[in-house]
């Protein structure tokens, strides 16, 4: 007996050891935020806390390294740019109170608000923007987003290549409150870029004092947004607290926000039902049962899933074949019945709701340029087959995640139904699929692009360089339209260029065939109001939210 007692003792000791270091996220530093959560039964949303989740870890809080939506969500709520997206996803003055643009549309002068402060009490000045933007245009930036500045700002690209000095770059602090930005070409959407996390300010003195520790923990950062970070754990999530030194603190109504990490959809739904979450995203299979609920809503993003044809491949190099394949897919059924997750059927490459001319959206202006027409599909197919001499055998390359596979299977069925052809599906991991496309080793692929910013250019200049990934598309007409749009000072003419370019790419040359705009269906607790989800850039906005 003595010996088995020893065994028990060893086990007990190891348990004590383990418990001492088990790191519950609800203890110590975040006790205030998660304390109420433990009172069972009541939804924690009733005491000034909103809890949302992400399906992936929050990779980094360092803004020049961050490139994923989960990091953006946090950064956007603990920091702020010159402008911030409002509830309607339009930019409105944030740290800047206004801006002026010169007649040649190349110089922007932003005026900051009075009395801006970082969360540690330091004054926030125009210099903080200069430091942060130069950092984003330096070799230190690892998020792959330097282009979003160097494409526009004078000498930005040269600075990145060490061919220009910091003082030659077109971003300057004229005084504490005035930031001057010089652009290479007229960019009507420049102000809409300043809402993105890459454009947020950073305090040079503070960042340098932290060195390699900057952004690793909540206490290694200072904040200027509606919230401050109370705790940050990449794996279990973050807790946010209202920032009292924020200029618009009076309008921030929810005092605590939790962002958790939940990888299992079923877990998220259970947590939502038990009152642990304020909002849950639904999978397609849950939508029918929940659709009639008052808590249900859905939204689509600026992210287009499309068929990319490889013009270097003999079979699909025939335009009639491409047109036939494009006409053969019923996108309404795909989005509403097959996906049924809030996704919207694509009627063009540029997603619903993207900026057009200020009164109408781009999509509204260019109309439905992608349509389903079984009769036309058949007609073009027969023409194409005649030109080729025989019916080509086709393979559709796709990623192996369940949604994309569902989409591919549906398209395969549509080709069979409307064209009477058997198309093979080649499903690969994301990496392998991208590799095949880069290696010019595919016929057509289901792929997607999400907008980096709210302008059609975020899509359109992808097809100007004729890479295999973009189907080896080389068109002088298209390239000159995009080139003209990039230097055009007349906004109306620029818009016309962009509208024509989309038509050229999609309906005339049929290089891509848009399928759907990705959407989300979710449930939100009735007590939560105005929890805004943006269709691009930083996804969730807590600033406007309130609790009943």
């Amino acid at each position: 007996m003595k010996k088995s007692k020893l065994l028990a003792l060893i086990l007990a000791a190891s348990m004590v050891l383990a418990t001492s270091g088990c790191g519950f996220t609800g203890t110590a530093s975040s006790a205030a935020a998660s304390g109420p959560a433990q009172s069972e039964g009541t939804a924690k949303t009733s005491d000034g806390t909103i809890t949302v989740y992400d399906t992936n870890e929050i990779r980094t809080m360092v803004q020049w390294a961050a490139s994923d939506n989960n990091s953006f969500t946090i950064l956007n709520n603990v920091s702020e740019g010159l402008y911030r997206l409002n509830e309607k996803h339009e930019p409105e003055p944030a740290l800047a109170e206004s801006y002026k643009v010169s007649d040649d549309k190349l110089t922007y002068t932003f005026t900051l608000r009075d009395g801006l402060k970082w969360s540690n009490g330091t004054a926030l000045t125009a210099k903080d923007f200069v430091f942060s933007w130069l950092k984003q245009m330096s070799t230190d930036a690892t998020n792959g987003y330097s282009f979003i500045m160097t494409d526009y700002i004078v000498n930005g690209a040269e600075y990145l290549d060490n061919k220009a000095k910091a003082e030659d770059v077109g971003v300057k602090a004229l005084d504490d409150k005035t930031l001057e930005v010089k652009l290479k070409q007229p960019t009507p959407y420049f102000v809409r870029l300043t809402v993105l996390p890459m454009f947020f300010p950073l305090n040079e003195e503070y960042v340098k004092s932290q060195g390699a520790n900057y952004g690793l923990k909540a206490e290694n950062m200072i904040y200027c947004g509606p919230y401050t970070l109370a705790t940050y754990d990449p794996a279990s999530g973050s807790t946010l607290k209202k920032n009292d030194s924020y200029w618009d603190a009076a309008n921030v109504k929810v005092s605590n926000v939790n962002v958790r990490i939940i990888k299992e959809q079923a877990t998220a739904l259970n947590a939502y039902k038990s009152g642990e979450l304020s909002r849950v995203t639904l999978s397609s299979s849950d939508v029918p049962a929940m659709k009639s609920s008052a808590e249900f809503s859905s939204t689509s993003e600026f992210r287009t899933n499309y068929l990319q044809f490889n013009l270097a491949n003999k079979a699909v190099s025939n335009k009639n074949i491409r047109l036939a394949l494009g006409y053969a897919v019923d996108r309404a059924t795909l989005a509403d019945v097959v996906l049924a997750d809030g996704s919207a059927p694509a009627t063009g490459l540029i997603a619903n709701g993207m900026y057009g001319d200020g009164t109408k959206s781009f999509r509204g202006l260019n109309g439905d340029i992608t349509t389903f027409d079984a009769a036309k599909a058949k007609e073009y197919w027969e023409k194409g087959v005649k030109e080729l001499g025989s019916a080509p055998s086709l393979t559709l390359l796709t990623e192996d995640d369940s949604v994309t596979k569902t989409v591919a299977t549906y398209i395969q069925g549509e080709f069979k139904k409307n064209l009477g052809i058997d198309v093979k599906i080649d499903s690969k991991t994301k990496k392998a699929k991208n590799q095949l496309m880069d290696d010019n080793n595919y016929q057509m692929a289901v792929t997607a692009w999400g907008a980096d910013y709210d302008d059609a250019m975020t899509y359109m200049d992808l097809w100007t360089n004729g890479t295999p990934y973009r189907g080896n598309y080389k068109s002088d007409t298209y390239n000159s339209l995009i080139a003209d749009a990039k230097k055009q000072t007349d906004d109306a003419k620029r818009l016309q260029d962009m509208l024509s370019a989309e038509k050229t790419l999609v309906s005339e040359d049929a290089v891509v065939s848009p399928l759907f705009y990705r959407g989300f269906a979710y449930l939100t607790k009735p007590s939560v109001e105005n929890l805004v989800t943006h269709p691009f850039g930083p996804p969730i906005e807590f600033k406007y939210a309130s609790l009943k």
Partner: protein
Amino acid sequence: MFKYICKRIVYLLITLLIIVTTTFFLMKKLPGTPFDAERFSLLSAAQQAQFLEKYGLNDPVIVQYGKYIGNVFRGDFGTSFFYTGQPVSGVILGRIGPSALIGVQAILIGLSIGLILGIIAAWRHNSGIDYFTMVVAVLGVSVPNFVAAALLQYYVGLKWGVLPVAFWQSWKSSVLPSIALSFGVTAMIARFMRTEMLDVLEQDYIITAKAKGLNQFKVLMRHAVRNSIIPVVTILGPIVVNLLTGSLAVENIYSIPGIGSLFVDSIKTNDYSTIMGITIFYSAFYIFVVMVVDILYSVIDPRIRLASGGKGE
């Protein structure tokens, strides 16, 4: 005993070095890079160069290996690629706690229930309780732990509201995952204990003990159990390691920031430094557990003499 332990520790280090070396070179054969190819291609040449330089990926693999080993001896496991800039040791240490706690609790639950069931089943051979134990054992082994986890979450967490549905906030959060993980342990221990006990109960010395007039309970505990427990101790080693490493599904279901999911994610994202860090941790832990089990043998059964050349394996 001391000499024996020292010798074992030397072996441990050698084994570890072999494992680290093998893993390092195999890992470099993984397809892809730690970087998202699309994002990486968006970096300028200078940015790419600085990035590779920072992580030492410009050097030939053999040089990288040399540097890595050197750093490990200095206690530096590098920084994670996936969690940009976070030190690997910090990432791993932060994740061990939750996995260790639910693992240890699962073993304690599984061990106590399994031993009791096994002993009673053997003692009351071919009775109702024996059949019951065997049904439990078959269920415990054949029902995957994530099914148990999902069921417990739905009923105990959501329907009855007794314990948290998920997350890692207080000790209560660890109860359901521990129970979910313990089923397999219970089943395995019960089966082993029963078989071994049945064997031991047939032995002459049990009959002798009974003949001496010892009461039933004492015979069972002092003579039968102690002699049956050795195989159980043997399988305990792998079980301990398994629970700490193989609880990925349960960790995901309960949204626990444990090490199981970290390991899988680090391999999926080619996070070289984290893969290496976890490999070192796992193998060191495994070898250590095997050593502890060997030492436990001698404690339980004095016939196994470690110091005098017994290998114990």
